[in-house]
């Protein structure tokens, strides 16, 4: 909020000065010169507040534009060695108030390193050592892992688990913050296949839905389009190459004000029935399915094993009211937000179950059912991202399941493709579970109901309504 207020204040001050200029200078100067002057003033102000690397107070340092994937991790960085204040939330401990003070800023960072190939974790060679099974864990932030050290992320834990079970594996964390299936497909085809992979684990879902709904509730969304860092993380817009750059900060501010503050923030409220209608449509699901199938096809031709992972979320539609209350009290979730997450999770689960006949599924959600309320909260840092404890649990579970899988042990292709089946599954992929559709319809109705409907016409309980 403060950031928005500051931004607004700065814009108002600049607006006033700008109008003043209009009266003083000619039309041609009005277009260019003031813009440059204000850009300079803005930068000076920002530098005064945030220091030399003030740009990374405005946007992420760890994520940069990428010519193929749209955006990706900046290569060759280690969080604790960066000598200026950074503000990427995911490299700080959960709940940290990120400090401007460099020393404090540095001490509060977790160990978050990106190797020279742009993957989280240690370096790896182009060619694997003989006898080693090379596993890539592909996904978004739930794979890259937020707010845990490199060796606490679940792919690293899984590697240890497989080692303890005498499997010689090298697990490479191919998760990138905010990535969706199309970016993973591109990276798999353009890059990962060159690293001699034996197995790829696909851990997807949350970002598919978010990438769709965040773009003006799906209206701007197009399948198979990659967006740069600003478009994905700050504008939540479709492609705007001219606006979505950081060369002119004033332009960035103005565009963000429009795209984020006026469109995204308004549309994405969980009390907005349109957001729920957007979730009900599920138009992104066939596109996600197509990407998964394409990865699997490519993997099959190269003899790479593929697994999809069903990953737990904090909230479930079946939560008891007591448990839900505990989540609401201890997280940023609101009632509708929690329900939204629970429905979204069910949509992901349903899609993965539908795909299971084609690509083997590693089920982990069921294992977490025994943990409820406070116990479950310990596994999460927010509604979807796991804590160190959660990552340790997940890494072990996936490691155990892989170790028990015959195909993995024998490194035998685990994909069975029947074209007819692919077509029929795709046709069904957008359909929700009936009880989810029912829940969505009820929620949408509740949110659409006008206040008068609820408040004014309730039945009295101490008299018969004769009027």
């Amino acid at each position: 909020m403060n950031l928005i207020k500051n931004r607004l204040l700065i814009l108002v001050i600049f607006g006033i000065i700008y109008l003043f200029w209009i009266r003083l200078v000619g039309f041609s100067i009005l277009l260019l010169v003031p813009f440059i002057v204000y850009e300079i003033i803005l930068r000076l102000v920002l530098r005064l507040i945030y220091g030399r690397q003030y740009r990374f107070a405005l946007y992420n340092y760890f994520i940069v534009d990428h010519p193929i994937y749209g955006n990706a991790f900046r290569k060759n960085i280690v969080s604790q060695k960066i000598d200026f204040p950074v503000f990427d939330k995911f490299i700080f401990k959960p709940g940290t108030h990120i400090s401007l003070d460099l020393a404090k800023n540095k001490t509060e960072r977790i160990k978050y390193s990106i190797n020279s190939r742009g993957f989280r974790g240690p370096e790896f060679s182009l060619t694997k050592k003989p006898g080693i099974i090379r596993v890539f864990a592909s996904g978004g932030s739930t794979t890259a892992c937020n707010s845990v050290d490199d060796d606490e992320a679940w792919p690293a834990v899984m590697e240890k688990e497989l080692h303890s079970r005498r499997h010689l594996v090298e697990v490479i964390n191919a998760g990138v913050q905010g990535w969706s299936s199309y970016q993973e497909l591109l990276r798999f085809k353009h890059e990962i296949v060159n690293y001699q992979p034996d197995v790829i684990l696909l851990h997807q879902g949350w970002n598919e839905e978010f990438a769709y709904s965040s773009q003006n509730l799906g209206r701007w969304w197009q399948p198979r389009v990659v967006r740069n860092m600003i478009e994905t993380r700050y504008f939540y817009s479709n492609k705007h190459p001219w606006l979505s750059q950081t060369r002119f900060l004033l332009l960035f501010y103005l565009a963000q004000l429009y795209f984020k503050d006026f469109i995204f923030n308004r549309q994405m409220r969980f009390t907005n029935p349109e957001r729920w209608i957007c979730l009900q449509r599920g138009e992104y699901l066939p596109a996600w399915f197509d990407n998964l199938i394409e990865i699997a096809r490519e993997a099959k031709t190269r003899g790479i094993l593929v697994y999809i992972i069903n990953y737990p979320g904090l909230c479930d539609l079946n939560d008891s009211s007591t448990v839900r209350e505990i989540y609401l009290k201890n997280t940023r979730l609101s009632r509708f937000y929690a329900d939204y997450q629970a429905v979204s999770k069910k949509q992901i689960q349903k899609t993965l179950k539908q795909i299971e006949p084609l690509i083997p599924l590693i089920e982990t959600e069921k294992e977490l059912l025994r943990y409820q309320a406070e116990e479950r909260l310990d596994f999460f840092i927010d509604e979807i991202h796991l804590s160190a404890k959660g990552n340790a649990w997940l890494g072990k579970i996936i490691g155990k399941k892989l170790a028990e899988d015959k195909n993995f042990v024998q490194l035998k292709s685990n994909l069975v493709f029947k074209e007819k089946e692919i077509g029929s599954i795709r046709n069904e992929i957008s359909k929700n579970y009936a009880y989810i559709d029912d829940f969505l319809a009820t929620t949408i109705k509740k949110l659409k109901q006008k206040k008068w409907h609820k408040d004014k016409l309730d039945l009295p309980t101490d008299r018969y309504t004769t009027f």
Partner: protein
Amino acid sequence: MYILGLSFFYHDSSATLLRDGVVLGAVQEERFSRKKFDNGFPLQSIQFLLQLAQINIDDIDKIIYYENPLKKLVRIIRSFVATAPRNLSTFGQAMNLQLRYKLWIKRVIRRETNFRGKISYVDHHQSHAASAFYPSPFNEAAFLTLDGVGEWATTTFGQGNSRGLEFFGEIDFPHSLGLLYAAFTYFTGFKINSGEYKLMGLAPYGEPRYLQTILDNLIDLKSDGSFRINQDYFDYATGEKMINEKFCSLFKRQARKPESDLTQDDMDLARSIQEVTELAVLNIATRVKKETGQKNLCLAGGVALNCVANSRLSRTNLFENIWVQPAAGDAGGSLGAALYFWHQILGKPNLFKSSNYFFNPYLGPAYNKKVIREFLDSNYLPYSAINEIEETTARLLADGYIIGWFQGRMEFGPRALGNRSILGHPGLPDMQKKMNLKIKFRESFRPFAPAVLEERAKEWFQEAVPSPYMLFVFPVCQNKRVPEKNGEKKLFGIDKLNVLRSLVPAITHVDYSARIQTVNQKTNLRFYTLIKKFYELTGLPMIINTSFNVRNEPIVRTPEEAYRCFMRTNMDYLILEDFLLTKKEQPKKEERDWEKLYELD
């Protein structure tokens, strides 16, 4: 031709869809919104019906609303004018509601549904009368409608035949049997619109000490069958409360505070007003018989849900046959409005009438096995698929387990008739207490009803006649009763509850009555088979059948609502179609204070 009947804004919103006069579906909005007696616009009910018929709103030819808002407005204004300048503030509130919302029903319907076709109104009691006569099995019958109030009428009667409905007479507001009963519901500490059936259940514990007081002061039963309510004691016509100080003075007490302990006086009041209601119903029914000469009678309106009064009327043999609309309250208004338009306005004949015609009350949503399996699998819930579920269920019931039973289409109306039910063994002495306190979490004085094999009903209940909608009570046969022990006769009030009275104590009320549902193969085959299997195992041709909900909660509609209710209560098993869920195998769910989710009824 599709006709959509709607009832909303007063009590118990609902929607009914007719296709060429055939009822495709009818459902109450409370089942979707989970707010008991929801009076909001029944949007989800409409959406369900459209989905059921696989049509969209533009395919509807006509929407019929169940009462006339303009006539109602006139009544409200005239009522206030008659008492002016008293209750001016209430008048302001009432007019505000009327002029802002309730008068503009067509606009509300169009805004909520985007319907562009024609919308009409049917009078409130025309809707009730149509809901009583047209679904009944009779080609000719008298009808009697009794409720709180519609536009003006509170009671109407007449006859129906192939020419349609003819109204012979009516009693107008403020003289209302429904409002009189509601006043006592309030006075004895229950909630109006939902506590009336509790008052009825409480009546057998009391003595009719106040019968004469009520007849002398509050209601005048006239020789022509009509009645007049003495308005000196009531404030409901225009006031904010049902009763006034004079009413309290008459009974030398104040209204019982909700949820406080029941006293013998409350029970005596309940018994007294119940007796008065029965007398009033008999009185007017005599007039109906005299004027119409019909041998059959159809009943509707909220008062027709008083099954004790229905039974007393039945026992008089004034009419050979009595049929009561299962959704007799305002929920049935949507059904009646649609039927009235089809038969009465369009003049279409009823092609389905025959002596053995059965009006199917299972008009709500159903969930097939695929959907249920999806729900169970996606939530990792342990279950077993059973081939002969009736037999398995009967065995479990015979072993004394309490079972949630979820089958087919949901019932329309307030009663669970074997598709959304909690079932138990009626022969076990502690079953009533256990089910009331540990399953339903409701007042312990309330009795449970049996679902009994129709062909065996007379062996167990005196003078039992088919009662497929659970709207009649009959006494347990003498040979099935257990003789009272010394000292038990002296018991009074709630102490009577724990006395073993019959071979089926869980369904035997303190006056030996039972509100029965007769079941045959035609009405509900699966439910019938279950009871039959139970009979084969235990020799008892009946099981306890209570609605699948807890106190204050609307009856469950979906498998997940059924599961949630199952997990919150002490039910032992849940049957969802052919799937059996065992409580012990379910993942533990910690849940405290869930009761607060539902307002007390």
